[in-house]
Structure formats: C-alpha cells, structure tokens
C-alpha cells in the first residue's frame, strides 16, 4: 500500500469537517474523492499535502509518517483549484520554482533545470509558451502549467483539487481525457477531488464518496454505480427517481403493480423505491405503474426525455427512445413502470 490514511479527524471551530476518515491508495492508482460541497473532500486532500493539520489520525506513505513532516518536505505535488500560479513569473519560471527550491546539494544545474522545464512544457503540450505570464494564458493552459509545476518536483503523490472546476464544459472534457493519458504515462499515484460524479466515474480507478466528513462508500466506478450501499450513493451518482412503495413478499408494490427489487431490502413494510430515468417502461394510457400526464417532450440529445406530472405536485423525467417519444405529445396520459428498483427505508 502506497498511501494509508487512517482515522483522520479535523474540525473548523465547532464544525466537524472530517470524522475519522480511513482510506488507502495503491501505487500508481488514480483515486477520486467525490462528494457534495462541505463533505470534507478538499480538507482531506489538504491534510495529505500538509496544508491542514488534522486533530487526530495518521497519514503514512510506504510506512513513513507524513504528518510528522512539514509541507515543504513532503514532496507531494498539489494542483490548486484556481491554479495558484505565481502571477509575476513566466510559465517557465513557475515550473522551475520547485527545482530551484531544492537544497544546494540536490539542486539540478541551471542547464538541467532549463531542460526539465522544456520537457515538462512538452509533456503538458505548451511548447513555446514558457515565456508567457499566467495572465496571458487561457484557463486550460494555466491548469496545465500548474500541473507541470507540480510534476517538476517529481512528487511521490499528485493531488488535484477540483482540477476542471473552473473550465468550460468542452475544455473540461478534453483535459479530462488528456489527464487520464498523462496518468498512464507517468504512473504517478494521483488523488483528485471533484463534485462531478461523471468526472469521477470516467477518470478514476477507484472512487471514494464522502458525505458530511465521513466515507460513504469506496470502490471502483462500476461497484459504486451498480452496487450502491446507500440511497445517498445511488442518488449522487446519477439522476434518480424516488417513488413511494410498499414491500410485500420481496417485491416492491408501486401504484398497485409489483416491481422486482435489486440489492438488499427488508422483507416487508413501507419504503422508498429508487430507479434511474432510463429504467422505465412507458405505456400510453392506462397500464401498469404510476399514472402520469406528459408535460413536455424533449427531443434534443441522443435520448429523448419526457417530463411528466404525477399525482400531487411531483414531476418525473424519464428517458425513452426517440421512436417512443414520437408517439407522445404534451397532455397525454401515460403509465410509468420501473423495470427494477432498489429500495431503502
């Protein structure tokens, strides 16, 4: 095990940010810390880097106690959410900064530093832009300079705080793929923080989902998506539709019709059924499942979506094929039946 975090606690005044979080990362692993804002994911990242001091717990790297070392001796690369580039230095000087900070005995020569800067600029695809100042670079370029700067110290671990948070959607997707490739090239143990489940599921080898300063579930993206251990995990990892149900003999009864249950569940009693928007069978008119009235048919995108009003003032948006959607128009009566559900009380 490369990095081992155990029982970390940290609070800001009376507000607990981390409640005994334990987590590990294998050598070369790409780990995502996912969670809503205020879940403690950034705090955990800053604890690993040494930018925050926890009240309790340990952080070990290959057996050595990281918490006993000051930030500057840890050798952990950190990419800040807003990059925190040195605004009065050119991109090249930003990247060279960490190498120039080394003690004289281990500091590379000026020539070696220059060569390394060029190499890193090439790695992050910014050849020829070393002379630019941060204010003369685009968001995506700044991000890559920040990454090159962190890589320049040849860190044991690379930490990224919301690496794509400040970028627009298209650049974000490009950089995401590029980062994955870069990770494969460098093989560096990497932990990144994100609140975007899509990002975490697409990039990471394993995802740690945090909620209120505690780990909710850790696993591969597939495990988290297909075997969520709590309603929170199910809800956080994708669009979810909640329907009240009653469990009878191992089957969820929703609006009078039975639906098979996936995953652990109580034998009987009232509960809430959870399903993804693409797991519904839509019948026009009376049929099995929840009666609803079509409010809007949305045809843009690879899947069509229909927005339906259900009893009370609820609204459900389910995904259907374009062929199905073509048969529907607003004000039609439909019946929505999930093919299978998960239940939590």
């Amino acid at each position, binding site marked *: 095990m490369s990095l081992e975090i155990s029982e970390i606690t940290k609070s800001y005044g009376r507000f607990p940010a981390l409640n005994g979080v334990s987590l590990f990362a294998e050598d070369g692993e790409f780990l995502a810390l996912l969670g809503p804002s205020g879940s403690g994911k950034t705090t955990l990242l800053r604890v690993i880097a040494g930018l925050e001091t926890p009240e309790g717990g340990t952080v070990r790297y290959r057996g050595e106690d990281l918490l006993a070392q000051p930030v*500057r001796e840890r050798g952990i690369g950190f990419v800040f959410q807003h990059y925190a*580039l040195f*605004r009065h230095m050119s991109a090249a000087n930003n990247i060279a*900064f960490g190498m120039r*900070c080394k003690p004289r005995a281990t500091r590379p020569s000026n020539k070696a530093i220059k060569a390394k800067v060029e190499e890193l600029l090439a790695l992050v695809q910014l050849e020829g832009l070393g002379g630019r100042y941060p204010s003369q670079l685009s968001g995506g370029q700044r991000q890559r300079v920040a990454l090159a700067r962190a890589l*320049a110290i040849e860190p044991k671990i690379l930490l990224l705080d919301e690496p794509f948070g400040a970028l627009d959607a298209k650049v974000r997707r490009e950089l995401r793929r590029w980062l994955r490739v870069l990770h494969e090239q460098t093989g560096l143990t990497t932990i990144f923080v994100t609140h975007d489940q899509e990002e975490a599921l697409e990039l990471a080898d394993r995802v740690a989902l945090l909620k209120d300063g505690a780990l909710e579930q850790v696993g591969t993206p597939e495990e988290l998506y297909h075997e969520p251990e709590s309603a929170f995990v199910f809800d956080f990892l994708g669009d979810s539709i909640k329907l009240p149900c009653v469990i009878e003999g191992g089957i969820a009864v929703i609006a009078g019709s039975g639906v098979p249950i996936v995953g652990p569940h109580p034998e009987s009693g009232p509960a809430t059924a959870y399903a993804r928007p693409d797991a519904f069978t839509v019948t026009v008119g009376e049929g099995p499942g929840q009666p609803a009235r079509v409010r809007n048919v949305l045809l843009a995108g690879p899947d069509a979506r229909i927005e339906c009003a259900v009893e009370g003032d609820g609204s459900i948006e389910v995904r259907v094929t374009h062929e199905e959607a073509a048969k529907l128009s607003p004000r039609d009566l439909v019946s929505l039946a999930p093919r299978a559900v998960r239940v939590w009380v």
Partner: protein
Amino acid sequence: MSGGKVNSPARRDPPLLVAVLIGVAVTYLILVLLLPLFTVFFEALRRGTETYLSAMQEPDTIAAMQLTLLVAAIAVPLNTVFGIAAAWAVTKFEFWGKNALITLIDIPFSVSPVISGLVYVLLYGANGWFGPWLDEHNIQIIFTVTGIVMATTLVTLPFVARELIPLMQEQGADEESAAATLGAGAWRTFFFITLPNIKWALMYGVLLCTARAMGEFGAVAVVSGLIRGETATLPLQVEILYNEYNFVAAFAVASLLAMFALVTLAVKTLLEVQFADELAAQRWR
C-alpha cells in the same frame, strides 16, 4: 460604460445645468485646493527669489529640514516593516484576536493626532506614568527628537498596513501554499512570492506614509516643545515663523513642504503610468 455614448441625445443634459455643475466643481477646486497652493508659492516669492533663497538658508530652517528627513527616515522604515508584518499576519493566518488587531491598526486614523501626542506626554512626560523612572535613568523622551520620532511613528502607523491588507486579502494565501508544497521555506516564500505580489501597494503605502511623516503637525507639536534648531520639524518651523510675523520665511518653508507633497504625487502618478500593464496584470483572477 457599455455601448452608451456620452453625447447621445438621451444623455445630453441641459446646457445651463452642465455649465452650472462644471462651474461649481471648478470654483470649489480653485478655492479649496489650487488657490491655497498657489498662495504658498506666491507669498514665498513675494519679495523676490533672493529673499526666498536666503530664508531657506537660515540655520534654523536647515536644521528643521534635516530633522524632518531624519524623523521620516526612522518612522517610515519602522512602519513599513510593521505594516508588512501586520498585513501578512492578518491576511495569511487565522488566529484569535485578529479583528481586534485590525481595529487597533486603524486607531491612529480615527484619533486626533493631538491626542496621540498628549498620550505620550502623559506616559513619558516629567509628571507622566513613567516620568520618574525615566528621570532616574536619565532618559528624556518628551521635548526631544526621540519623542518626535515616536509620535510620528504612531500617527503614520496605519498607512502601509492599510494599503496592503485589502490587496493581500484579495490575493489569498494560495500562492504561498503552492510555494510551500513546492518546497519553499518561509523566507523564500516571502521574498519570491509575497513581496513581488504586493510591491506596488507597498510602494504606495510607503509614499503616503512618507508624505504624512514629513507633514505631521499636531502630535509632533505636543511632544516637541518647539525648541528652534533642535526639535522643530518643518511644519513646526512654519508655525514658529508665522507667529513671529516672518511671513516670507514661513511661506518659504511651507513651499518646501508643498514641494515634497507634489513630488510624492508625481512619483506615484509616474509609477502608475509606467507600470500600468503590470498593475493590471496583478489583478487577474
């Protein structure tokens, strides 16, 4: 201004109103600012340049000039160091009593300088709290250069800190944190990251602090004792000469102070023009 032209009909005010408003503004500026400034130089040169120059060469005036420069040379560096330290502490760290410290820094701004001077007399004067003890050890503060330096330092204390705090607050501590993760120690971080980021604000602060240190009257008047040629700074020298009906000399010395102020302003403006790009670059987010 987005798109709207100043001269578009919708925005054109009645000519009379325009004339009146501009007239009021210009008259105000002339009466309050330009006329007094002009008067200073006019009165100083009234009897010709020769009288002016000889008034400047009075030993007392030269002594006052030297004292003023000496006081500024001590007070400004002290407050620069203090200002940087205070702004650094307040903006890069969280600690108990932080807001109290910020308020404390502002006190010299809100209290009349005369009070500041008086406090020193009450503390260090012959009948003050520490008076007997200082007397025993043969130390005199009130009516000496030491007292003047202390009073000036107190009055000019907020200038550098006040200039730095808002800027450093806006910049946050991310760059310093980044430097730390890259292996930089505290001194390297300060000299290579923090200082370059605040250099312009720092320069402004130092300029303003210098201008005020040289021009301070109230606090210095209380602690100085007005000993000619010994504890009279330039502003006090103006007062002394004026009270002696030596108007030409008084205005000559005053013109010197006015010139200091103008030079300060000119340097500030020049810096802004010269480094406009760099200043703008500092504000990127």
